[in-house]
């Protein structure tokens, strides 16, 4: 296959594939973005469901805590008018700071029955400690005195920062609208930020009349102590007492864990990724899903849990291959491969079709060639006998001689045509090689002119020949004859109207030059090369009524070039002038 053809085929195959790859790539990127956002949506939904589960646990916890903070009349004498203990007893310090606390005189005088609350603490799994505050913030239970249990002493230690901050439950928490049963409205201020006073509880007692109105009657309070966030749930009784529960963080965590899914053994039923519930320090509280994310990578989606645990987050880590849309890229790849096959198939098809055509064409040519060969012998015989007859019939009547001349002419034309066809076929096989013999070019020109004279004269064309190459030289006379035959034939066919055909020959060193000029319609400059291409005619107009194979000039030029010369159209004032040059053997050469 010719390199050019190969390149064309390569282009035909590669160009659409490249285009397809480019478009497919864009499509896949779009798909990736689309799928990614869809995945994120799905993940966010999953997290939202889990967040809801946590909120449900918190709501249930809150209901339990509401019960736990209920004050039955029997347990507490809510006597607010009872005169307060006038003295502020100095209490043993918890930690290093000396702390003041307004306390009841003794457990016996306390309006609270401590045993009641201690029993509650012992049985309520969510309560680490219960406390009761007076409306002014002073402790009613537990009391940090001799009657306090070890657990109660530890409670004061744990919650010190809360009381040091001078907290007033439900008064100066975040200014949120009251939400009777909505956990998310509960205050969640960081105690650390409000350490206004160094003493506990009622160090700065606020009288009820001056106190800000209570905005809520229950809520959450969070602070950090030890290993993480600690929670207090408080509730204000009608009497103004605040009952609070220090929530057992581990019990709450355990409940939350219980409400979240586990990793199913069956991979198809399990989460295709990993969801992690993590605390404020980003430590894992609980996680599930079979996928093990690499340490330190960021989650794909993150969702904070509702207040009061809003510092906790749910994190979704997806498996890398689920998010990167392998599918889209795979599709594009498949499409590319498929198109590659199709285009290559088409290319192969066209190539085969083409080569079949070429083969068929060459078969046709060889058929024509063979036919021409077969025609050549009878035609030669016809010509020979016609010419013989012409000699014998010199004294025959005019009409018979004219008829005979037509036969001779036409058989000559026919043999020229066959010669052309055979030469064309030879050319296609690359076998149009000159076969020089010694001869005199002017004689050959003259003989060809004589052969055309009757036909040209009949069309009114006057022939003039100026021969300047009389000497014998080495030259393929067949080539010369055929070239001249084609050129004269063209004059006869196309330029007879000019009435003149002027032929000049000349020798210059070893180049034989022939000029054949007519005064016909001429050839437009733009087409002067095109006429040498095979099967080209100047115009349909010109072909009207003119027969021809369209290969004459092509063969003529080819023969001239193969003979070391050229056939060109040269500038002339009128009509067309062909200049034929042939490199010939030296004059001195003898065969």
């Amino acid at each position, binding site marked *: 296959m010719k390199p050019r053809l190969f390149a064309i085929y390569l282009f035909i195959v590669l160009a659409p594939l490249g285009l397809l790859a480019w478009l497919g790539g864009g499509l896949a990127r779009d798909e990736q973005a689309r799928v990614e956002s869809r995945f994120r949506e799905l993940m966010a939904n999953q997290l939202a469901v889990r967040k809801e589960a946590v909120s449900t646990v918190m709501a249930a916890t809150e209901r339990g805590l509401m019960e736990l903070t209920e004050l039955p009349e029997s347990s507490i004498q809510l006597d607010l008018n009872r005169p307060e203990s006038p003295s502020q007893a100095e209490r043993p310090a918890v930690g290093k700071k000396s702390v003041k606390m307004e306390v009841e005189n003794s457990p016996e005088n306390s309006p609270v029955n401590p045993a009641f609350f*201690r029993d509650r603490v012992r049985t309520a799994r969510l309560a680490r400690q219960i406390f009761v505050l007076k409306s002014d913030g002073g402790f009613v239970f537990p009391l940090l005195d001799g009657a306090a249990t070890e657990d109660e002493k530890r409670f004061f230690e744990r919650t010190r920062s809360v009381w040091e901050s001078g907290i007033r439950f439900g008064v100066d928490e975040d200014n949120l609208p009251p939400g009777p049963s909505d956990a998310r409205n509960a205050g969640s201020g960081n105690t650390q930020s409000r350490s206004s006073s160094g003493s506990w509880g009622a160090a700065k007692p606020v009288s009820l009349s001056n106190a800000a109105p209570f905005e809520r009657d229950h809520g959450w309070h969070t602070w950090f102590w030890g290993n993480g966030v600690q929670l207090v749930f408080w509730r204000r009784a009608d009497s103004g007492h605040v009952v609070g529960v220090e929530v057992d963080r*581990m*019990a709450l*965590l355990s409940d939350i864990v219980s409400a979240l899914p586990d990793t199913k*053994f069956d991979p198809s039923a399990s989460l295709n990724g990993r969801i992690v519930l993590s605390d404020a320090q980003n430590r894992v*509280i*609980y*996680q599930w*899903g079979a996928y093990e994310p690499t340490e330190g990578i960021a989650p794909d989606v993150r969702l904070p849990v509702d207040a009061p645990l809003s510092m906790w987050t749910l994190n979704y880590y997806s498996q890398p291959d689920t998010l990167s849309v392998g599918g889209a890229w795979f599709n594009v790849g498949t499409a590319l491969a498929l198109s590659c096959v199709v285009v290559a198939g088409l290319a192969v098809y066209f190539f085969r079709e083409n080569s079949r055509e070429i083969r068929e064409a060459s078969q046709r040519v060889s058929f024509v060639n063979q036919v021409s060969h077969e025609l050549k012998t009878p035609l030669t015989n016809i010509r020979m006998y016609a010419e013989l007859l012409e000699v014998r019939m010199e004294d025959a009547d005019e009409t018979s001689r004219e008829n005979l001349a037509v036969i001779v002419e036409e058989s000559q034309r026919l043999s020229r045509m066959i010669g052309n066809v055979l030469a064309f076929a030879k050319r296609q096989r690359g076998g149009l090689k000159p076969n020089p013999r010694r001869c005199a070019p002017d004689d050959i020109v003259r003989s060809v002119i004589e052969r055309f004279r009757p036909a040209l004269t009949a069309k009114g064309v006057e022939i003039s020949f100026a021969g300047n190459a009389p000497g014998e030289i080495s030259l393929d006379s067949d080539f010369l004859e055929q070239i001249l035959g084609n050129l004269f034939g063209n004059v006869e066919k196309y330029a007879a109207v000019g009435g003149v055909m002027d032929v000049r020959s000349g020798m210059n060193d070893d180049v034989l030059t022939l000029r054949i000029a007519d005064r016909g319609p001429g050839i437009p400059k733009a087409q002067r090369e095109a006429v040498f291409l095979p099967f080209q005619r100047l115009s349909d107009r010109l072909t009207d009524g003119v027969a021809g194979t369209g290969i004459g000039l092509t063969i003529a030029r080819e023969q001239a070039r193969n003979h070391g010369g050229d056939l060109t159209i040269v500038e002339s004032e009128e009509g067309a002038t062909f200049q034929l040059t042939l490199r010939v053997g030296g004059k001195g050469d003898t065969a």
Partner: protein
Amino acid sequence: MNTTPVPPKRCVATALAVGFAVSVASADQVRLKVELGKPVLPADTKHTTYLKVGLTGFKLDGDVKRPPVNVAIVLDKSGSMQGEKIRQAREAAKLAIGRLTADDIVSVISYDSTVNVLVPATRVSDKSAIFQQIDRIGAGGNTALFGGVSKGAAEVRKFFDRNRVNRIFLLSDGKANVGPSSPGELGELGKSLGKEGISVTTLGLGLGYNEDLMTQLAMKSDGSHSFIEEPSQLTEIFNEDFGEALKVVAQKVEVRIECRRGVRPVRVLGRDADIAGQTVVAVMNQIYSEEEQFVLVEVEVDGAGAGQVRDIATVSLGYLNMATAVSDRLSSSVAARFTASESEVAKSVNRDVMVACVAQIAVENNIKATELRDQGRIDEARRMLLQNRDYLTLNGEALNSEFLRNYGGGQGGQALNLDEAKWNANRKQMRYEQQAISQGKFNYRAPSQAFGPMRGQIGVSGQGAAVQQQIPVLGDLPQMGRLFRNSTNRPPTTNSIPVQQRQQPVAPGKASN
């Protein structure tokens, strides 16, 4: 001493005796036994003694069926469990479940970095299906212990019933590292589970687990803890511990001790209990069949005139009887007689109470030695352990207690294993013994041969045996610390306390309501 059976089902029995009160209502009731370390106290002087409230579960036999159980088996399947360990764990779990019947409920949870609920809580009717799931457990990953236990608790809660034994069995060989992982946090979890009525039995396998975490989780939930050094022991020990759940005869146990005026509860030895003023409240999740659990209270008693008999405390016990599914209440009280005779005081010493006291104090010393070793103070820890050995041996001789002598021998073994190479295993054994003995398990498992003498397999044998006349150490138990400070190592005696020479006869036991 008197008993008052109240038929049917609900029984209230009380008894009052000097220094010794037993209340038994019927065959399927818990035996409540209130004793004083010294039922006869020196007159007219403030004295410290011990009050022991013993609770012994009734016998489970043909007539009394064991209560159905609701257990969660939580298995660590983290990477370190690979091979022999996980294989043994699977076998142990299957063997344990094999002992259950269709009345029982079981769930199986495995965990590594995350938690798998392999067998959600289900009746034990199709054992092969459960075994199939257990056989799927392979090892690999991290240790989400908190999540595993929480999920176990969630499964137990599904069929939670006070008339069932609700329990979690946790087997782990590694340190928790996903989720809350500190001993304090897991202890808190254990406490909240205990409040719910779910005990956790923890089994530490090999030398890689965190014994503090495992003992905290077990003790705070009133479960038990075992140290399994070799995987080959796993099946046996697991089943031994599992068997505990099948021996529960009472749950939701609350012991309330009201001390009378002039009697101050100072502290409770060996277990968590609330002391508020004159009241001591201790809760236990369960009482096991034919095993004694006790609450040991150190009390300070004001002196009274010689010959007087004075009530020391009233004890009320409430529990859910698993055999009858009824809440029982028992009460009992104990009194002391005051005497001027020193020998009478010494003679009155209650051996059982004193053995229990010595054991608990030795446990406290052992815990202190652990702390010292943790701080790198190896020599001090060793000294502490050796002194503890002497203390136990001395009292073991005085009280004729083989258990104390053996426990003392163990202290000597532990003192020899404080170096880095052996400390890890030693510490695990110490933590195990501390929790076992503080729960009154005097037949704890002895350490492997490397650690000194073997365990003492004694209960409280020889009840009737005569208590030795000369018990010098006992008179001053609360000041045990002095033993260590005392360079002569001579135990102080009761002689140092002035004794009024007034004598009164022992008052006979009387029944009261």
